[in-house]
């Protein structure tokens, strides 16, 4: 269930992870898993189309680097990506507040 739910919020989660600094795909998915203490355990391949979509939207840019003879693509947050993150965090806070207000425990009425 958590995996299904995270797909709808994947973009903002990726932007948040990359706010801490440039990273390649494997580092991003590892950070996502570690910070959620294993709750967000997505198929790892799903992260790349999401990163590419964010780059197409201008929220990320990327460079290639070579480590131990292996090419890696390093993603970094752009200024508009940082703005999109702030907006996404705000939307999420509103959503959580709305859900919590509906789910708030109520005192049973005396019969």
């Amino acid at each position, binding site marked *: 269930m958590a995996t299904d739910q995270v797909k709808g919020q994947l973009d903002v989660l990726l932007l948040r992870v990359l706010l801490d600094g440039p990273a*390649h*795909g*494997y580092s991003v998915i590892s950070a996502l898993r570690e910070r959620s203490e294993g709750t967000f355990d*997505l*198929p*790892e*391949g*799903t992260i*790349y*189309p*999401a990163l*590419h*979509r964010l780059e*197409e939207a201008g929220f990320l840019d990327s460079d290639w680097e070579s480590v131990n003879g*292996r*090419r*890696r*693509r390093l993603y970094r947050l752009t200024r508009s990506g940082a703005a999109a993150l702030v907006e996404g965090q705000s939307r999420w806070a509103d959503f959580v507040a709305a859900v919590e207000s509906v789910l708030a425990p109520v005192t049973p009425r005396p019969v």
Partner: protein
Amino acid sequence: MTEDSTGSSPIEEFLDKLLAASVGVPPRATRHLLAETEAHLRDVASEATEAGSTSAEAEEVAVARFGSVDALVQAEAAARGLPLGALIRPVVGTSLLLGGLAGLAMGVSGLITAIMGYLAGSTFIVNISHHTYLAPSDCARWLSQNHSTHSCYQAALQDWSFEVVAYRVVLGVLGLVALLVYLYLGRRWSARQLIFNLPRSSVDAVAFVAFAGVGVWLAGMGVDSLIVSAGRGAGQGLGTAPAMLVLGAVFGWRLMADLRTALDRALV
């Protein structure tokens, strides 16, 4: 790495499948996706190996954690806004190529049919005899259009044989236009690194079956007319069959080359 004697391993097989499934994704995007995927898979496999897994187990774990090729390619295509264009471009490109070649073949067949008509007479390309019923109103029209003829039969023969050739020549011109459009669009799409043809082996197989099949069928119809109708109308089939059979042979030769290449790869 856990490559066997054929150079295969779980990661190599996954990358092969990913490459094969990336039809419609621009070449550069495909290369980048493959490079990122390979680096990711090898990182995961290295970690699993350090944790005590065998190389084969480590690669299987890496591939299993990565997810399915189909889901990845679909998500990648969606991320780049590709689905519609990526589907339409190869269909349009291949249709223009094969349709253009078919039209051109019909145009050539028009010329062959015209020569046949010139050498063997109009009845060789039109199935008409003195016993064929010809409506008086049609006769009046044909005679008014062909002043050099003195009978309805002769006028009909001239009109129909002209149509047989003219329609083929028109198809030839349309085929040429389609091929020019194909070359123009192909140049534009190539410049943007977009794929505009369906896979070569598929195109070759479809074209071979279509052109060779039509060629054999038309040749059969022509021979049948020679035997059954004393050659009346045989030129239509016999004039078109050679052009179709030539195209069938070209695509058959390409298909054989495709099969030889696939066989060589399988045996490496």
